[in-house]
């Protein structure tokens, strides 16, 4: 392998790599604004200038190919001088907006200004004024004064989102970003530009001003918007989710996620419609109850039916653990009737990320051996072969009016649900379930990658400290008397746990304390998941090869 010397350190590089890439691989950080590993090189910010021996002038490391024997200095006086000059130049017209800018705290310009600049400006003239609140598209706001013209957003729209919607307009210090005439910046991936904008020029309408970034905790998780399962971070303050951001995983989603996933998959967690307690139907009305009573009634009413009169609805929205325990429970009471509903929007798919299967775990269900589509259940209910139904995290009645009618034909409907929906309205018993942001578990995405979710929001049975959840500074030092610690906690439990509790009234053999134990059991009993555990899956997931699960 050819080698290059950076700051006196000999590093190997792959032919075709640029100096900045070779340096990054060797763990040497060269400041950069416009360079992004997944975008084409534009070389316009000039902050990555480095001194290369035998070259007459400094060169930008993002656009200079590394060649064998090259000697690069990233910290020499000449380099630092140039870098400081570039920073001073970029800051000439940059407004001092940090106090009102959402990027503050995760802003590259702020960081570099702190680490690499002279710390003062020689520019006494009046700064340029530009438009500050331009709505580029339905979800993204643009502040022209803050833009440093790195063109990352333009390149992203062209190269990754494949929709040429943004461009520069004007020249010199009047340059600004705009959409093409008559166009709106509305492709399905626009909010990624907010992430990659090195400054706060692009802001997310939905998150704008909701919180400073240092006030939130972040938890690694997986998006539940479709079967891609983009890796994400969940950002929480005061036990409320405020935003989702993509987390780098080259095999799944690279640096990106879609706008729909980012905006529409977390609000239900803290919404008004959450099921806040157990409910039992008494004299036609759903009334609040508690876990002890509700589980007792559930068990008693289930026992009134013959085992094959009871059917179960598994859910591709729930984790492997939930569905596995549902299966086990069904087996304990000798019922073979396990069904699930598909949520496929045909054609709503692209070559980038979005998949037409809108659930995070349908492959997981198949791998567990849950294959029966609910169409078969219709017949069973109509013929009165099935009289009792236990529905886990699925809005069956929401699938259409025929299902609403079918459900009303049943003698017993037990619903495990996170939020109110048409099905919970028809239920005889409702047991509140924890959402994907309130439990541990695993999903299998469409590629066969097993990925972990982790609790980011506390329920009544979870505790940030004791359960090792991530904490913000507020969480660390807050007490129950602080108003910023009084965020709502729901009395919900993960579905798998509800089944284990219910089983204590039946066989009393399904005994698990943690989701991890459940997964270990899955791994032991199912060859597809052999040798996997939570540590092996880790943050980036483990791929199950197609050959392994094909025949299942």
């Amino acid at each position, binding site marked *: 392998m050819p080698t290059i010397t950076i700051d006196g350190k000999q590093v190997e590089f792959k032919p075709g790599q640029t100096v900045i890439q070779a340096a990054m691989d060797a763990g040497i950080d060269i400041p950069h604004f416009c360079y992004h590993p997944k975008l084409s090189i534009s070389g316009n910010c000039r902050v990555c200038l480095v001194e290369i021996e035998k070259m007459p002038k400094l060169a930008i490391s993002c656009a200079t190919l590394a060649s064998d024997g090259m000697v690069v200095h990233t910290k020499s006086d000449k380099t630092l001088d140039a870098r400081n000059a570039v920073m001073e130049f970029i800051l000439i017209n940059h407004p001092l907006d*940090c*106090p009102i800018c959402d990027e*503050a705290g995760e802003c590259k310009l702020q960081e570099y200004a702190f680490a690499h600049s002279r710390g003062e400006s020689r520019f006494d003239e009046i700064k340029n004024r530009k438009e500050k609140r331009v709505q580029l598209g339905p979800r993204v706001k643009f502040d022209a004064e803050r833009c440093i013209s790195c063109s990352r957003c333009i390149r992203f729209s062209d190269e990754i989102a494949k929709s040429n919607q943004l461009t520069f307009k004007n020249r010199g210090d009047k340059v600004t970003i705009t959409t093409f005439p008559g166009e709106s910046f509305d492709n399905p991936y626009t909010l990624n530009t907010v992430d990659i904008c090195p400054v706060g020029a692009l802001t997310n309408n939905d998150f704008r*001003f*909701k919180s*400073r970034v240092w006030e939130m905790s972040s938890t690694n998780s997986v998006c539940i918007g479709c079967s891609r399962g983009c890796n994400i971070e969940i950002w929480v303050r005061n036990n409320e989710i405020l935003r989702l951001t993509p987390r780098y995983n080259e095999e799944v989603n690279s640096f990106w996620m879609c706008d729909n996933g980012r905006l529409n998959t977390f609000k239900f967690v803290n919404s008004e419609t959450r099921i806040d307690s157990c409910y039992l139907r008494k004299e036609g009305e759903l009334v609040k109850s508690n876990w002890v009573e509700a589980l007792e009634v559930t068990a008693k009413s289930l026992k009134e039916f013959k085992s094959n009169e009871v059917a179960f609805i598994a859910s591709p929205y729930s984790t492997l653990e939930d569905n596995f325990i549902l299966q086990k429970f069904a087996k304990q009471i000798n019922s073979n009737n396990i069904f699930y509903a598909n949520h496929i929007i045909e054609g709503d798919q692209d070559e980038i990320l979005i998949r037409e299967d809108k659930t995070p775990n349908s492959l997981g269900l198949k791998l567990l051996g849950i294959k029966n589509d609910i169409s078969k259940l219709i017949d069973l209910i109509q013929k009165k072969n099935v009289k009792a139904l236990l529905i886990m995290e699925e809005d069956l009645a929401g699938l259409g009016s025929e299902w609403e009618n079918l459900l009303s034909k049943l003698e017993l409907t037990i619903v495990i649900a996170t939020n109110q929906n048409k099905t919970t309205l028809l239920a005889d018993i409702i047991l509140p379930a924890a959402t994907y942001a309130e439990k541990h578990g695993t999903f299998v995405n469409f590629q066969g990658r097993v990925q972990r979710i982790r609790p980011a929001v506390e329920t009544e049975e979870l505790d940030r400290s004791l359960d090792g959840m991530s904490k913000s500074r*507020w969480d660390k*030092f807050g007490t129950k008397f602080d*108003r910023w610690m009084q965020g709502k906690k729901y009395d919900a439990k993960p579905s798998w746990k509800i089944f284990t509790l219910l089983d204590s009234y039946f066989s009393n053999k399904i005994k698990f304390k943690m989701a991890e134990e459940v997964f270990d059991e899955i791994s032991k009993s199912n060859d597809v998941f052999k040798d996997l555990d939570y540590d092996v899956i880790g943050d980036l997931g483990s791929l199950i090869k197609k050959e392994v699960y094909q025949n299942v």
Partner: protein
Amino acid sequence: MTTKKRFKDLTFWERLYIPVIIKGLVLTLKTMFKPKVTMEYPEVKFEPPASYRGRPVLVQEKNGVERCVACGLCSRVCPALAIEVQAAETELEKERFPQKFEINMLRCIFCGFCEEVCPEEAIVMSKDYELVFQDRDSAIFGKDKLLVPVENLQDRIDFLRKFKK
């Protein structure tokens, strides 16, 4: 048991006590004719100088709007985690304003860091030292209690401009 040896045994005159008592009474007598330094608080109130750090307050501009842009820096720097700020968008030029601004006076340690860090000169230490509460909730001051017209804070602001770098 051994008796503890005194550091210094009293002399005969000292053991008489009378001269010492007279000495004390003379001091009392002298002080009676000096000007008074005590104040009959709360009837008479102490007016602190501009350098005094009383409870932190928010500066309210003449047009009734607070200066604060809800940047959250005071909240971040506060060593006692006394300040909670919730920003929101406003049509005004400043873009952001504090929809909620609360200082928990049971947490505040009157260090003045919030005042020092504020980029807008929007939070300053007032001269108000009278803080009495009967329950936890009333110790949390919202915008209603925190906003003070800029005129009333002028000498503190002048003091800061003179000494704050």
